[in-house]
């Protein structure tokens, strides 16, 4: 068998494609140590005169707060949002996958439909809604809708997962005297854990990158999350410090990168329980 030759081919391909994948990250990291004039002056990855300037100044920011504050704010949004998403989507997916009730098809249809309308046009009505709720300049608009299973993608995904998990354990639990909520908590959630981890990870990364939401709903600088803080000083009509922005970009990407690497095993296993059977 020519497995070794196959492996050589595979590795060559993987490394070649992998480099293209990694290039921007490598460039980003390299450039974050460059001086401003060097960033666009030459295309090399390694800085000629490496400097930590970008990191130091970038961390200080032009606000009364350091970048740490903005990370903390991001965390304050991500934490309830992720937890809320996981809980609410698990509940809702459980409802869809395990129970029959009137209008189920229509309700499921709305889940798909919410994915389809470009949100540019719902932005203003939504803003006015949150204004009337008195939620402006708080984190609430950023996570409450998600915590009410508002992210259709996740609901859809978890429903698919659940459909692939046999019901036997749940029945065993019911015979053991558990009610449906206990069954959900003690049996379904642990078995769904890999899928839920994937949901949390996706939500983590997307929230970390979301710029427009915080921009519109948060006006106080002390409440800015990193995504917003990152663009705080980019004024295309004036000059600005590229290396600070790149340095902070690197810091912003880092958590997602680490989390993905650590979780990717669960992540992939997680989806495979549900991915197979439509």
């Amino acid at each position, binding site marked *: 068998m020519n497995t070794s030759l196959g492996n050589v081919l595979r590795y060559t391909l993987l490394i070649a494609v992998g480099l293209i994948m990694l290039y921007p990250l490598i460039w980003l990291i390299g450039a974050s140590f460059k001086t401003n004039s060097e960033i666009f002056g030459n295309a090399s990855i390694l800085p000629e005169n490496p400097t930590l300037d970008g990191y130091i100044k970038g961390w200080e920011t032009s606000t009364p707060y350091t970048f740490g504050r903005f990370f903390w704010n991001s965390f304050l949004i991500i934490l309830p949002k992720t937890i809320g998403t996981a809980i609410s989507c698990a509940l809702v997916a459980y409802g869809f996958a395990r129970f029959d009730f009137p209008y189920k098809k229509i309700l499921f249809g709305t889940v798909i439909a919410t994915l389809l309308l470009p949100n540019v046009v719902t932005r203003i009505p939504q803003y006015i809604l949150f204004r009337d709720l008195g939620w402006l300049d708080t984190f609430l608009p950023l996570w409450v809708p998600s915590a009410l299973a508002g992210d259709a993608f996740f609901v859809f995904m978890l429903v698919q997962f659940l459909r692939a998990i046999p019901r*036997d*354990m749940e029945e065993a*639990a019911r*015979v053991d005297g558990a009610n449906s909520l*206990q069954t959900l908590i003690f049996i379904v959630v642990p078995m769904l854990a890999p899928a839920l981890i994937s949901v949390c990870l996706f939500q983590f990364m997307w929230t970390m990158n979301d710029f427009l939401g915080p921009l519109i709903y948060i006006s106080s600088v002390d409440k800015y999350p990193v995504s917003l803080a990152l663009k705080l000083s980019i004024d295309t009509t004036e000059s600005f410090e590229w290396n600070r922005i790149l340095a902070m970009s690197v810091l912003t990407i880092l958590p997602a990168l680490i989390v993905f690497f650590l979780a990717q095993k669960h992540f992939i296993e997680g989806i495979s329980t549900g991915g197979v059977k439509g």
Partner: protein
Amino acid sequence: MASVDLINLEKTYGGGFRAVHGINLNIADGEFMVLVGPSGCAKSTTLRMVAGLEEITGGEVRIGGKVVNSLSPGERSIAMVFQNYALYPHMKVRSNLAFGLKLAGVPKPEIRKAVDEVAAILEIEPLLDRLPKQLSGGQAQRVALGRALIKKPGVFLFDEPLSNLDAKLRASMRVRITELHKRLKTQGLSSTVLYVTHDQTEAMTMGDRICVMQGGHIMQVADPKTLYNRPANLFVAGFIGMPEMNLIDGRLDGDAFVLGDQRLPLDLSRLPRRPAQAVLGVRPQNLTPGATGLTGTLAHVEFMGHDVNLHVDIGPARMVATMPAADFDRLDRAGDRVTLTPDPSALHIFDKDSGDNLSL
């Protein structure tokens, strides 16, 4: 008191499919009742209605005399062992066992005691800290059993608990479960069992009584020996026994059974009536090579160790005869002509149309 009574029990599934057709069955307190039948005959459906996992669409289920139709599974004083064990994959064996008690709010030390007790009975103490995926099939089976035992329920429900095990393990688990049932009974613990299987060996060896089902109907309820020796109808006759009973289409002519151009003289005086089309039933063990009887071509000889199975083609029918290997030494005589002599006391005559056993 944990008798189980099914009264005109019906099940019609959402799609309108009628799976159970109003069956009646009384299972006495402490009885080991086996539900047996081919795949799809609604054994599981019946069991699950008793468990409360499936809505009852007609009739009643009574446990200990009390109608339980509207109770949830947790309230029915039952425990169930599933075909694939349905162990909670994320919990250690100990927690799997303790889960029901925990839900019931039993204090921790008591739970601990109960777990240890059950583990001792089932000899699974060394496994308590493993996860289900670290168990072999037989071990998982015992844990599933333990999970049912620990609740000290009135009724045990089993849904093909052994079908995922290999033959050897199945044999030993069979013995273990029956012994356990006896033990519980002698300890005075009410332990009514409703045991679903499609394996007739299990049914025969385990049940106090056996209920044979087909297509949502009960075909016969009887103890194993009666079922084996006096099957009520064609279906039961064909279903029970290994190798299968030979069932040969033919007709009755005078005092003989006629198959093609061969005549088998019989004592037909006992028959209440003479069917138009008859089926002759005889078990392979009750056929011996001899001078008289039915003659055919030996198609194939199966060596089974102590026994051999002779597969003989008699006209269009195939008959199997089982005899000690010592009596039939040569295995390579395929193609030979063989005459099989049935034991006259072990012959059955069935009415082909109604399926009834007329010779009972």
